[in-house]
């Protein structure tokens, strides 16, 4: 499969194939895997929304739960997962490198008083809040931190659909914490079913990364791990089916 040069046609709307890809993604609940440029365009374009809804209505009777992986979305899911894993490893290596550098720098500085004085004044100049360069750098770091922080709270379209479906049966399943609840660390997950059965509880990030999975034959589970501030989802499933999907926030 060759990558397209552009996802858009000459009239600046999504091309026929991009339209088909979007419809596939909706059918498979994987729109989060679509190219950002396509998502941004459709978000702002009424014309393209109309087109997508029309085509979706033509194909929705047709099962799109393909046994074969999707040519783009199937590969993208694998690539995203492995890319995250590689990114975390690279980030860990960089962090260790920075830590070692800082350690050796401080160690050398303590041995030579004269070098400490000169280096300190250089460091002070670089990060002193009074300098324009320092202010700009601080602002950029702060904005980047804000973007990353906000991204931790963005919803997963795929899991949101499951949460909405599950909410209609919440009265029979009676789970806690309630959907959208703000929790502290040490979260007690509880649920009530007609009979106690062996279930798997999964906790996922808003990027659908599996953070914790545990199999038990109880109706409660105390999570004592640490979660960064953000939006999270949890699933309860037995060997045959998905019983419940909920979401909660960590402040």
């Amino acid at each position, binding site marked *: 499969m*060759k990558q397209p040069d552009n996802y858009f046609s000459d009239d600046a709307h999504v091309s026929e*194939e991009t339209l088909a890809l979007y419809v596939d993604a909706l059918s498979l609940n994987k729109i989060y895997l679509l190219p950002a440029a396509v998502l941004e365009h459709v978000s702002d374009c009424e014309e393209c929304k109309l087109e997508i809804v*029309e085509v979706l209505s*033509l194909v929705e009777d*047709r099962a799109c739960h*393909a046994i074969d992986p999707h040519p783009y979305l199937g590969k993208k899911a694998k690539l995203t997962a492995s890319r995250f894993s590689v990114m975390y490893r690279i980030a860990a290596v960089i962090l260790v490198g920075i830590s070692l550098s800082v350690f050796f720098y401080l160690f050398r500085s303590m041995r030579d008083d004269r070098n400490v004085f000169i280096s300190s004044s250089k460091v002070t100049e670089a990060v002193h809040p009074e300098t324009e360069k320092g202010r700009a750098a601080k602002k950029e770091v702060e904005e980047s931190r804000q973007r990353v922080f906000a991204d931790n709270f963005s919803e997963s379209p795929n899991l949101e659909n499951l949460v*909405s479906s599950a909410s209609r049966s919440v009265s029979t399943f009676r789970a806690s914490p*309630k*959907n959208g*609840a703000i929790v502290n660390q040490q979260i007690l997950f509880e649920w009530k079913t007609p009979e106690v059965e062996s279930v798997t509880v999964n906790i996922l990030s808003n990027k659908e990364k599996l953070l914790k999975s545990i199999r038990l034959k109880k109706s409660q589970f105390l999570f004592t791990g640490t979660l960064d501030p953000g939006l999270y989802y949890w699933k309860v499933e037995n060997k045959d089916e998905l019983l419940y999907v909920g979401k909660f926030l960590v402040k």
Partner: protein
Amino acid sequence: MTENDKDIELLRSNPQALIIKYQEIVKIIVKKSIAAGVFKASEFDDVVQDVNTALLTKIPAMQSQYNGMSLFKTYFSVIVRNICLKEHARNKREISVDQRGITGSMDHPHVEEKFIFEHERQRFKTILSFYHRQRPKLLFCLKLHYRIPLTPEDIYLWYPKCSSADQNVLMEHFGSKFDETDDVEIYKIVTPFMNKNENKSNSVDAVRKWTDSKISEIVQVLNGRPKKLNYTEDTLKTLVDDFFSPFLLEN
């Protein structure tokens, strides 16, 4: 070799056989076009033939444009649908469309009404998913517009860095019934928080117009093109209330 790979191979080596393979898709789409009033029922066979003729001439374009990103079946559906629209435009037929809205008078039995509403509920959720990064803000504004009480989680999802003080102000105004508050008053209160969150300086009017434009867009997309349904800003409330109702019940 997946089914899609086989289609790609046929597209290269024997595209006429591919068109024959997907005749069922052509017929389904023509039937749906007739149901939508684009063609008359008596024209079914003629339209199918016209579409097949157009497909044969479109083969070189499909071979050069289709790059395997989407499922071929879906791409093919887009092509057939676009051919139907061109045929319709060429013949300049009068559109005769059943314009009953789902909240208007309906002669359907109760069971069919439930099925139709479920279908509309899914379409509404699909349209909301189009808004990508704007979705939290859109959900927040829909609640304000339709006077649905906010929860702390609504504020958090839209504005993760909202301070406790700001959250208290918003909850004080909108955390319980606020039917008597007019639009101007609502946006006067909310706009400063929106500007804080987005680091902008939009006017009260600009924020209100943004909400109105999104609601209008949702209504247009729900009604379809050509217009098949009769949603208005008022009747959209039924779907909005239903969408938020699981979370209302839990509160």
